[in-house]
Structure formats: structure tokens, C-alpha cells
């Protein structure tokens, strides 16, 4: 009788090594995005937002929460805002993205695009409301039109290369979900 054999693509050791490389690359990406965010005085995209969300689409809930926290704290430092302010928001967004990709959504570009766009614009508006609009400054809408809106649009556009880069890293290093699926098939 012929038995169908399901072979694993990676041994456990190899898998762990690839995971290690993956996280080193993610950490490097985070560092590069942070440095780019703090260069110059012109309006810039908040690169850490799409990066954290894209990484979360490829990782589990705890890892997503950690990435969201780290990127959020770095964003707080770059934007000179209260420490923890962005971190809490990004942590929740990253966990939601991870859960959505784990249970309801397929990891597709358009899904990620809409999630990034919604979070970026919502975060930008809340930011504007709490840091500027609430204080009743004269011509305060100019800040939204000249800073928050262009920055938000740039952030959403920057999501495209970031998504492709993160997807490429996750594919060559083998994402956690693929490994778990593999393990489930083997046990089955």
C-alpha cells in the first residue's frame, strides 16, 4: 500500500535560526525607519506605523504586541510626545491586525493597505485633536492640512515598499503561521 508522506520543509533548528534572522532583519528595519523619521525638519511619513502593522500580519499576537509597543515608544520619542501615548494605540492595532490575519483575513496587499490607511488617518486625527485642536489655536486647521494630512498620505504610500519588504523577509525566513500549519498537518 502506498502511503502519502508529508515532509517538513525545515528542521526545528533550521527554523529557529531562520526566525532569529527574521527578527534581526525586522529590528534593523525598525531602527532604519526610526532614524529616517528623525532626519531633517520637513514633513515626513511615520514609517514605523506601516512597518509595525505589516510585521504583525506575519506574526503571532504576543510578537505583534511587542512590535507595536517598541515601534510606538520610538514614535513617541521621535514626535516628542508623552511616552506610551503612541505605544498603547499601536499595541492594540498590531494585536487586532494579527488576530484579523489569523482568523478572518488572508494576507493580501489590499487588506493591509486598508488597515494601514484606516489606522494612520484615525491616529493622525486623534493626534491633531489632542495636541492642537483642543487648545483652540488660531488657524489650527492649517496644521492638519499642511502637516497631518500630507504626512498621513505619505505614510499610506510608504506602506507599499514596506509591505513588500516585510513579506519578502517573512517568506524567505518562514513565518510562524506556516510552521504551525506544517506541524498540524504532520500531527494529523
Amino acid at each position, binding site marked *: 500500500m502506498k502511503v502519502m508522506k508529508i515532509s517538513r520543509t525545515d528542521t526545528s533548528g533550521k527554523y529557529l535560526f531562520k526566525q532569529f534572522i527574521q527578527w534581526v532583519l525586522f529590528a534593523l528595519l525598525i*531602527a532604519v525607519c*526610526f*532614524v*529616517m*523619521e*528623525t*532626519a*531633517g*525638519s520637513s*514633513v*515626513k511619513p*511615520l514609517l514605523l506605523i506601516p512597518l509595525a502593522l505589516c510585521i504583525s500580519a506575519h506574526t*503571532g*499576537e*504576543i510578537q505583534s*504586541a*511587542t512590535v507595536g*509597543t517598541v515601534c*510606538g515608544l*520610538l514614535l513617541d*520619542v*521621535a*514626535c*516628542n510626545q*508623552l*511616552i*506610551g*501615548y503612541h*505605544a*498603547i494605540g499601536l*499595541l*492594540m492595532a498590531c*494585536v487586532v491586525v494579527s*488576530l484579523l490575519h*489569523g*482568523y478572518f483575513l488572508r494576507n493580501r496587499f489590499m487588506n493591509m493597505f486598508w488597515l494601514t490607511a484606516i489606522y494612520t488617518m484615525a491616529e493622525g486625527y486623534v493626534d491633531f485633536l489632542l495636541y*492642537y485642536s483642543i487648545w483652540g*489655536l*488660531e*488657524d*489650527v486647521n*492649517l*496644521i492638519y492640512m*499642511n*502637516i*497631518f494630512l500630507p*504626512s498621513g498620505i505619505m505614510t499610506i504610500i510608504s506602506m507599499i515598499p514596506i509591505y513588500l519588504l516585510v513579506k519578502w523577509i517573512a517568506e524567505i525566513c518562514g513565518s510562524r503561521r506556516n510552521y504551525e500549519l506544517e506541524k498540524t498537518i504532520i500531527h494529523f
Partner: protein
Amino acid sequence: MEHFLKSKKLKAILIIMALLTGILAYAVSAGGYTIPAVDILNTIASPFQKASNAISGKVEYALNLYQNAEDGYEENEALKKEIAELHKQLVKYEQVQQELDELKSFVGIKETYSDFVITSPCEVTGYVTNDPFYAFNIDCGKNEGISLYDPVVTEEGLVGVITKLGDNTATVTTILSPDLSIAVYCSTTKDHGVLNGSVGLAMQGMTKLLYLDKDTALKKDRVILTSGENGLFPKGYVVGYVNDVGTDDSGLTACASVKPSADVRNLHMVVVVTDFEGKGVESHENQQN
């Protein structure tokens, strides 16, 4: 999904959130002083930020040069290659020259204002991301003797005040910000007023002079100096030049737009005035009011 809601993962995430909320609450109560972890992070990130700033500065410089060359493209085509070669040499030379000029200028401050106690030149490590009022970070902090609300200057003029302070880093709120109110006067007409940033003018790199007499003799290009009335800023330091004079919305007083004499949006080095004559002392006129 149900599995996740009952799992330990959710508890762990909630613990992280509680921890972040605690940090947030602590940061709120810190009152201008950065929490140690942020100071360490800033210190680590500082060299990378400086490098990144240097690169972005070079790119901006190259882009500007290209744009200017484009205007005279036809006339200069034959010389373009030569310019490109000279440009490479110039970039390096100008950087060295700029640093030298900046250092020389800070010596000038000490010579002109003998009562000033100033720090050694502090490097601008980076501007706060997307801040409409161009707040920036410097690589000096408490260890250099800086205190909260110390004035920050360049040789050209007043730049802002220290509003966040760590051991080795500090954040400067610029004179373009509506958070700062500075008592000033005009050196020629002796008109007194209050300099207060406004959103619309900050976008153009300018700030607003309020509460001037309705019949003010203030005109374009008049020099505006600090009056030192509240003891927060030294008396007689240049702030900027009048750009335009008008009447304010109420129609009761006049106001003016002021162009800061220091290019607040493109700073590389600044000094912090840690002490000066009259620091913390309100003037007699002010006390009576």
C-alpha cells in the same frame, strides 16, 4: 478567536498595556524632565540621527544646487561637468567652513554679552517629527549645567527655550510656538509688545508681535529685541526683524509679523544661556503691574 480570548496571550497583552499606561502616567507627572529610559534611548540614537541629518542635509543641498542650475541650463551646459566636479569639493569645503564659522560666532556671543554664562556649542541632533513649530533636540543636558526654560540662542538671535530636559539631551521649543510668550521691544521706536507664535505665521517661518500701541511707529525691517522684563530672557538680545505691521482682530491694538533673525527651521548648532544678569528677576515695571 474564542481560544485567544481565554488564552494566556490575552493576559500577557493586557499586562503590557497596563505597564504602558503606568509609564504614560509617570511621563505626565515628570513635568518637563525626560524619563531615564528615554534619555538613554536618545543618547544611543543621537549619533545615528546626526549621521542621518548630515545625509539629508547633503541631499537637500544637492537638490537645491540642481534646481538653481536648471534656470540657466542653456547657458551653463558647457560648464556643467566642471561644476559637478567642483561641487564635490565644495560640499566638503563648505561643511568645514560652516562648522568653523558657527564655532567662531559662538565666541562672539561671549564677547558681546559678558554677563552670559553659556554652554559649549550644542549640536542639533534632529527636529521633532512633523512638529509645526520646529521644536528640536540637542545633544546637551543637565550634565552641561542646563536647566529647564534656559534660553537657547545662536549668534544671529534668540531661538527658543529648553522645555524638556534629560541628562545628556534636551528638547527646545522655538519662538515660532504659541506656547512661548516673550516680552520684547523695538530698538528704534521703543515700542513694547509680546512675541507669541501663531500657526499661520509659523508655516512661513515667522512669529507674531502682539499688544502694540494702535498708533505704533513700527515699520518693516525694524529690529526687535528681548526686554528681559520677566527674568526668563536676557535683556537686549536680538529676536528678529519686523516683516509687516497691521491691526489685530479686536481693532484695539496693533500687531506685527516678525521674521526671526536666526533660521529656526535649519539649525545645526546652538548655545544655551545658563545664566545672565537679571535671570529670574522680574523688572520693576512688571512687578508694579
